[in-house]
């Protein structure tokens, strides 16, 4: 029985941590589904291509060449090294060691070679990322919204990657040492170790037992670390590694300038303009009166809520935002962070079986001043590497302010009154629309 103890421990560790992650993923899905319907299932071919291009192909990421290149290395490294994860999991369950080695033969050596090279490249890239964030202090990482958890989160991810890659390389080095110097049939000759071979001197003078202990410890810490990091995603901006894919698939494919018309309004306006309509007719029973625009996360649609979970707070949107550049309070990244924070708050209440509290996204998280500072220029939408649309949330919240609360800035009320009365945003006489034509002839 005790011979199988590691297998049992592994199974418990694996299933409990995967189970916890599944539970949290379900909570995220539940929270996203608190949003209103959005019809984004059409044009599937175009959507797959959009995802392949932007998420898989990182096409918007590389618009900033340096951070783009570093990100591509970490991203490809992550995907490639995780192929090894499959072997580690099987080994864990079966108590085998490098089970793919005999099956793959020399291809196995090539794979391990590639993993090691990427592990090193990831370490180098992460070092640059950390330097950009903490030494060079790239401006967009030091905006007011990047305090507290947001700052911690970014650094924790980088440290976690360093730890995991170091464990991976140390594990390989110990394995290589055992393959070379120990006469232990368990450690078969397998793999090629272009990076970790340079770590061999660490084990000089160590006994075989000690190196086996190091190999086992790093093996367990590595897989355990990965499973913990997986669960960390739920609390972190790092969730983008998963959500970037559905996020780009379900993105808005219309021209960025097109702000959707609200069907509920269309119905009412048609009634107003229809001279035959009965103004006192009772509305059909199945119609629930809905709010116009958004004051809270439940008024937004599910794609907007998924956007909030997908945001990795890189701040490319904010650094392109004309309002933010000129010192206004508005930061498109903060709009996304606030939406997620409020959704998390709501989710926690639901987890406890409570009702949603009186807080709202508007005012408790996003101020009116932020909303009115937007020029709707789409720079944030254009800049986002994974097709997040902060502008749509700003517009929905303006709709709430104007249509539910009549709380537009007074100058805008003047503008709207003019449009209503004169058909122009200024108080000019409609009959003077041809003044330019007269002037042209004189």
């Amino acid at each position, binding site marked *: 029985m005790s011979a199988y103890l590691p297998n049992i421990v592994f199974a418990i560790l694996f299933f409990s941590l995967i189970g916890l992650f599944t539970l949290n993923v379900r909570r995220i899905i539940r929270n996203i589904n608190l949003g209103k319907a959005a019809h984004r299932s059409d044009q599937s071919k175009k959507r797959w291509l959009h995802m392949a291009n932007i998420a898989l192909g990182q096409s918007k990421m590389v618009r900033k060449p340096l951070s783009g290149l570093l990100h591509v290395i970490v991203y490809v490294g992550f995907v490639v090294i995780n192929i090894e994860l499959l072997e580690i999991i099987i080994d864990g369950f079966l108590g085998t060691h490098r089970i793919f080695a005999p099956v793959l033969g020399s291809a196995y050596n090539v794979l391990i070679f590639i993993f090691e090279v990427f592990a090193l490249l990831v370490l180098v890239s992460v070092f640059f990322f950390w330097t950009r964030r903490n030494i060079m202090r790239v401006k967009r990482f030091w905006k007011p919204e990047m305090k507290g958890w947001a700052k911690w989160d970014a650094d924790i991810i980088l440290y976690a990657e360093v730890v995991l890659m170091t464990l991976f390389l140390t594990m390989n080095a110990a394995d290589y040492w055992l393959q070379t110097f120990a006469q232990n049939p368990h450690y078969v000759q397998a793999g090629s170790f272009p990076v970790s071979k340079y770590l061999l001197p660490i084990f000089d003078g160590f006994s075989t037992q000690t190196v086996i202990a190091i190999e086992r410890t790093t093996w367990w810490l590595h897989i355990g670390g990965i499973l913990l990091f997986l669960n960390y995603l739920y609390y972190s901006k790092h969730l983008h590694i998963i959500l970037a894919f559905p996020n780009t698939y379900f993105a808005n494919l219309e021209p960025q300038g097109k702000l959707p018309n609200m069907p509920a*309004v269309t119905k009412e*306006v048609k009634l107003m303009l229809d001279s035959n309509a009965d103004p006192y007719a009772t509305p059909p029973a199945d119609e629930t009166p809905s709010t116009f625009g958004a004051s809270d996360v439940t008024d937004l649609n599910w794609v907007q809520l998924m956007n909030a979970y997908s945001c990795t707070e890189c701040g490319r949107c904010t650094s392109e935002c004309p309002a933010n550049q000129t010192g206004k309070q508005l930061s498109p990244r903060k709009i996304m962070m606030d939406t997620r924070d409020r959704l998390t708050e709501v989710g926690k209440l639901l987890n406890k079986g409570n009702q949603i509290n009186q807080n709202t996204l508007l005012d408790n998280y996003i101020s009116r001043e932020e909303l009115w500072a937007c020029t709707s220029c789409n720079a944030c939408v254009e800049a986002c590497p994974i097709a997040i649309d902060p502008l749509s949330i700003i517009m929905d919240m303006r709709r709430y302010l104007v249509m539910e609360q009549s709380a537009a800035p007074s100058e805008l009320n003047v503008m709207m009154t003019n449009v209503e009365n004169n058909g122009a945003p200024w108080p000019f006489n409609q009959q003077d629309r041809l003044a330019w*034509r007269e002037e*042209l002839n004189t």
Partner: protein
Amino acid sequence: MEHTTNIPTLSELAALGKQPEVLFWVGCAGSFDERAKKITKAFAQLLLKAEVSFAVLGPEESCTGDPAKRAGNEFLFQMQAMTNIEVLNGYEVKKIVTTCPHCFNTLKNEYPGLGGSYEVMHHTQFLKKLLEEGRLNVEGGVFEGKRITFHDPCYLGRANNEYEAPREVLSKLEAELIEMKSCKAKGLCCGAGGTQMFKEAESGNKEINISRTEQALETKPDIIAAACPFCNTMMTDGVKNKEKEGKIVVMDIAELLQQAQDL
């Protein structure tokens, strides 16, 4: 009255049982704003020169509803849109050209869902076509040796992915086209969009139009070319703020092309 035969309204044409090839949607700025009216006149003169069969709506034109929509007033927007669509469909309008990117965006993207589907072109796209077809030609080298930088309007560029048409028209002027550091998809807004034109900016440390003007001035231009009446106002104010109004002019692409026509 001579002018009515030159530039008719749709109703004047309808009275004669005629229809134009294209409707020139002038827009509120183009109709009422003194600076923007000059753009309207320049574009109209180009259309006349190219012998385009066109008409305007005149008093029957009303705000597209764009500023109301961007302010969050969807009711007012749809009221405006449906009223306009009724007029446009009544005249069986098929093709619209406009000098305002905001009107362009709204007519093109937001009217079809409300029953108004037209082929909508921005005036820079239309002018590009006229040049290609040889209906307009650039004469003389009025702009030879001049440095021109082009400010992309958000509602033409990012909103509708049109970056080339204005540049192609400008390239015909034999001037030197110098791009700003942030241009095309990365072009900085002039500060007028999203109804900012009609209100004071929120408190900050700078006006957006000043930032954009500074970017334009870095190219050491003789002319800042615009393609939107609102950008034009913002950039003109920016140039004044920098006390460069004697040296640098802000002009719409239609005005530049009109000058090159020697009309």
